[in-house]
């Protein structure tokens, strides 16, 4: 009996949580199918006159179309996530498993590079990028986002690696594994949930970042978030259009998420059967 009441309460909390998490999205998608007039109607309606006009406009008529910018965002995101994980995981492993002089200070310095607000460094980075010919290039944006993500990866993975007892690895190495093998076969699988979470977060930063993208890109490397703001013309916010381009920009990330979810769950179950 008590168990049932408990479960019911939990169910209610979860349901409320789910509703809160999802209703803005539902509204976003619904509005993307509304005419501009309906999107500002009082009281708000669910969807009286569905139309595809908004999607047609953002894909075909508005300048080069949102798909081009999404392609840019995809390339930049893939590049920066790969590079950040490569650099960050290596460093995190070293910090966790090796004691050496100054490791604490160095780790802290790495973290500190993420502490400064973009305002302080945007102008010098703009000048530096221009000087290095990285302005308005995909590579330039990849490097910027890697710069933002590497400290995050180092610190996140440090935390996850620290949770894995040294002894497991050492036992494997005593059995004849090289350090690299031990890493691949033991550390990585055990830290997989953390790795997935970290990678996902890097992806999100690269896909969704706005301010640096605004100032460091022109027509060649402009990313999706910046392109979405073209629905805000100086006269009016075309809500329907904005929701359409936003929904399109959301889809790849949601798909990625759905795919990653499977591995995420697998990683968690693997963790449960350990030991």
């Amino acid at each position, binding site marked *: 009996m008590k168990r049932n009441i408990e479960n019911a309460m939990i169910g209610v*909390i979860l349901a409320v949580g789910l509703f809160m998490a999802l209703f*803005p999205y539902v509204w976003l998608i619904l*509005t993307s199918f509304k005419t501009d007039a309906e*999107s500002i109607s*009082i*009281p*708000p309606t669910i969807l009286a006159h569905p139309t595809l006009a908004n999607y047609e406009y953002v894909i075909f008529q508005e300048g080069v179309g949102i798909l081009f910018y999404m392609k840019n965002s995809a390339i930049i995101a893939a590049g920066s996530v790969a590079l950040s994980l*490569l*650099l*960050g995981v290596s*460093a995190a*492993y*070293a910090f966790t498993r*090796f004691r*050496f002089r100054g490791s*604490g200070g*160095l780790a802290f310095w*790495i*973290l500190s*590079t993420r502490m*400064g*607000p*973009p*305002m*302080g*460094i*945007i*102008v*010098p*980075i703009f000048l*530096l990028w221009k000087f290095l010919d990285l302005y308005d290039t995909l590579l330039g944006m990849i490097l910027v986002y890697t*710069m933002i993500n*590497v400290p995050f990866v180092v*610190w996140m993975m440090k935390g*996850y690696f*620290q*949770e894995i007892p040294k002894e497991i690895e050492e036992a494997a*190495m005593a059995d004849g594994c*090289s350090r690299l093998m031990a890493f691949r076969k033991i550390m990585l699988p*055990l830290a997989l*949930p953390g790795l997935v*979470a970290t990678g996902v*977060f890097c992806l*999100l930063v690269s896909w*969704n970042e*706005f301010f640096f993208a605004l100032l460091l890109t022109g027509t060649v490397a402009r990313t*999706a*978030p910046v392109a*979405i*703001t073209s629905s805000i013309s100086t006269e009016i*916010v075309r*809500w329907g259009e*904005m929701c359409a381009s*936003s929904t399109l920009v959301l889809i790849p*990330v*949601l798909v990625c*998420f759905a795919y990653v*979810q499977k591995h995420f*769950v697998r990683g*968690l179950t693997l963790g449960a059967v350990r030991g």
Partner: protein
Amino acid sequence: MRMPSISDKHLAYILIIPAVAFLVALTVFPFAFSVVVSFLNWNIGHPEYGIYLVGVKNYVDMLSDYRFLGGLIRSLFYTGTAVSAEYFLGLLFALLLSREFRGRGIVRALFLVPMVGTPIVYGLLWRMLYNPDFGLINYILYSLGLLSSSQFYSGHADWLGNPTFALLSIIIVDIWQWTPFMFLILLAGISSIPTEPLEAAKVDGASAWQTFTHITLPALMPATVVSLLIRTMDVFKDFDKIYIMTGGGPGVASETMNYYAYDVAFNYMNLGYAAAIAFTMSVCVLILSNVYLRFTRMG
């Protein structure tokens, strides 16, 4: 027997150097530039004033600048409220979803959805939702009886336009967006807890609360610290939402230190002063993170 190979110390360096070199190459110039500029009088909009060293004058000016002090307080309020709420909600849902039940995978996945979108889009979306005339939130409140008919139809309940509620409204958006992040990190942490201690505790007859406080929570420490650290740093610097939802208004009611720095840099074009504010922000974050780390004796 361990196979002889490169010494551990060398291996450590080899693994760390790429990350460090990368960061050094790309960040040293900008950060140094920014710090140096904070000691200059440099107003790019008034080249005729000249660029010259003024020592700590920018910093001293900050202390008597009411907009800066207000911004600092608002930043701290925003960060404190948002991060605490996100942590507690994230922990709650992580615990609830760490037990097995049918459909758990899907529910978990759905919970993560708010995290994936663009802050700029969220700013616009929530502006639409908060709109006192055609926004959905007021309509829901009105339907639930929490808003009177006159309040609804008069458009008086303006969340973003009210100095008392503007910042809170933005904070709510941040909580909505980032609780899934905390949830993700803490869930990963919970699932990494080895099962033996948990089973042993059950066998010993420990209550759920005792298990939680003596086993789960301590084991979550590293994940807690990291997530709190990262979120604090990020919330402190939050910009996009404020930029697109209120522009720091009404008046300066939702203007955080970071937004003020933007205003100084891009509207007043006073780079020296903006750099000083930015540097002060970095120092604030530095202090906060040190506090976290000392607290858990890590790092």
